């Protein structure tokens, strides 16, 4: 079956056809939802989603989906797998197949989770992405479950575990549409876990993070899976005056993941520090698309993303730092470092700067290479065999970035994996 045919099957499961036009299976939630769906669908149609059953899908990145014959998520019981997840006691937030799970969650004081929907957020979300980026729109079209998490002003939570659990079966899709509102003076660190039960399941994650003025918000993100699932992630972060956003993102295992992140620094003294480490196994593919937009003066951003190619996997880093005309004194640095340990590993990295003002400090760089032969020889000269020496160097390369995990447990877990 061709990729086009498979994808048409996928959308067949989500929508109906009537005289060659799409019609929703599910009733729109409200007028705003109808408008949003229409806009999203137009976006998809404009960039390749077939209008009619017989038309071909044009979007190149869909080649990634070539092994999937996707169908609608199935509702099944997965109690045994959920028990295996060993969720921590105490405060935690859990989403199951994209729906907030009150049974498994323990919502801490200062946090409110609801299904209230602010449609303007999602309309903005949709418009935030480049027009060719249609996967976010796909998620909005396919599921009308939306969650909002609010962290009340002044809330301080040192560690808040968050679990995104997906039990959808092979060759089925699940969607998470989630909006985070981090109010003034909040200080919070999330430990986000993405766990997937089945191979060949498809996830579409749409998340918004609104960081209010003077709030400090950190995310530890752990995506390590023995499952060869497929994820399309769109994270949109907006940081207001003197707000601070930071993240440490680990992606390892067999999953093929496309991570799109856009961070908008909206007002003076807003800061964003993003770090990521990818360690794709076997033939997995991790694609990191990162766009940082300095939209106000005196904003700061730092990004350090790395990959270790220890298997014949694939990694992309496409980074962009945009500095608007009014963003005087912006300070930005973006670097991608990549370590090639397997001859079959493929890395394509391209950091870019797009600057429309003159009084700025911006740097970008990328490095790609094998381990330093002198360093390897040095370690061997101390009695380490080349395999152990390579592991030491690999861990050293990773250690520099793993220090950005706020969670010692997560850092130790990843260190053990390496």
């Amino acid at each position: 079956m061709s990729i086009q045919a498979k994808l048409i099957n996928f959308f067949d499961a989500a929508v109906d056809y009537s005289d060659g036009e799409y019609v929703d299976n599910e009733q729109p939630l409200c007028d705003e939802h109808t408008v949003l769906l229409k806009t999203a669908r137009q976006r998809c149609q404009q960039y390749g989603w077939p209008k009619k059953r017989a038309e071909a899908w044009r979007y190149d990145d869909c080649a990634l989906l070539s092994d999937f014959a996707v169908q609608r998520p199935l509702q099944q019981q997965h109690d045994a797998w959920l028990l295996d997840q060993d969720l921590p006691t105490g405060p935690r937030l859990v989403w199951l197949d994209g729906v907030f799970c009150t049974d498994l969650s323990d919502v801490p004081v200062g946090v409110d989770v609801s299904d209230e929907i602010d449609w303007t957020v999602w309309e903005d979300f949709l418009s935030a992405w480049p027009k060719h980026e249609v996967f976010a729109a796909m998620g909005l079209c396919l599921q009308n479950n939306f969650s909002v998490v609010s962290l009340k002003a002044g809330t301080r939570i040192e560690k808040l575990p968050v679990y995104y659990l997906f039990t959808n079966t092979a060759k089925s899709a699940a969607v998470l549409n989630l909006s985070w509102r981090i109010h003034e003076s909040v200080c919070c660190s999330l430990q986000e876990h993405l766990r997937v039960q089945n191979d060949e399941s498809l996830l579409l994650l749409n998340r918004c993070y609104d960081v209010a003025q003077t709030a400090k918000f950190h995310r530890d993100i752990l995506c390590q899976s023995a499952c060869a699932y497929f994820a399309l992630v769109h994270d949109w972060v907006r940081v207001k005056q003197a707000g601070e956003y930071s993240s440490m993102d680990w992606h390892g295992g067999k999953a093929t993941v496309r991570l799109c992140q856009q961070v908008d620094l909206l007002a003076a003294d807003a800061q964003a520090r993003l770090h990521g480490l990818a360690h794709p196994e076997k033939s997995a593919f991790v694609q990191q698309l990162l766009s940082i937009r300095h939209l106000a003066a005196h904003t700061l951003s730092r990004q350090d993303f790395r990959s270790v190619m220890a298997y014949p996997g694939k990694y992309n880093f496409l980074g962009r730092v945009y500095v608007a005309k009014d963003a005087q004194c912006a300070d930005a640095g973006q670097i991608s470092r990549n370590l090639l340990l397997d001859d079959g590993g493929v890395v394509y990295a391209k950091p870019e700067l797009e600057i429309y003002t003159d009084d700025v400090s911006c740097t970008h760089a990328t490095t790609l290479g094998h381990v330093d032969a002198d360093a390897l020889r040095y370690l061997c000269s101390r009695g380490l065999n080349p395999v152990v020496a390579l592991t030491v160097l690999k861990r050293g390369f990773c250690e520099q970035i793993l220090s950005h995990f706020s969670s010692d447990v997560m850092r130790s877990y990843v260190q053990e994996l390496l």
Partner: protein
Amino acid sequence: MLTIDNLHVDAATKPILRGLSLSVRPGEVHVIMGPNGSGKSTLANVLIGHADYAIKQGSMIYQGKDLSTLSIEERALAGIFMAFQYPVSLPGVSTLHFLQTIMNQQRKSRGEDLLDAFDVINEVERVCAQVGIDPDFLQRPLNEGFSGGEKKRHEILQMLLLQPSLVILDETDSGLDIDALQTVTNCVQSSRNEQRAFIIITHYQRMLRYIEPDYVHVMYKGRIQESAGANLAERLEQDGYAWLEDKTE
């Protein structure tokens, strides 16, 4: 302990060592001096098994084993240690973790129990005091941001921890201030014993104020041209190497 016989070595097809012979017995200290490009560092690298050098002729027998059949790590586990002239930096590799790894690798090869982190810290801190290293350095990435002198001290620290049989010091004295030189040479002197031999490669006689060698050799054009006691170093300090040219001719 070590017998090198008529060793010929090429680096990228260029002959560097041209018939070098040297015999080192346990407990001896051999100093090798010579002008730049004479092959001193090549000899050191060949002894530890650097793959960029090709042995064309001759032999190196260490404790009854043909060194050319051993890999670089096998040589290290057999007790050969080189303090590098330019120790590499290992970003992200904590010094303590590195020391624990190399100490345990050696213990493992000898069939001894492995040390846990606390054992290693105790042992390392003891040796740090001897070498004049602040133990806070242990938490830093190995050699990253270290001064030249600090790197050399760390090489000596490793030597003291690993307790090798054959120590090669490749210009360890270069870049050291007087105090650091004295500390390093004291460590070398105090670690001398009847089982351990040293090959010290240096350009300067100053190291020999603190370490009394059994032999001083002068390398020139890829081979040892002259061997004598410590007085040979003094002559080199006064006369340089020009007289060797006449002797070679």
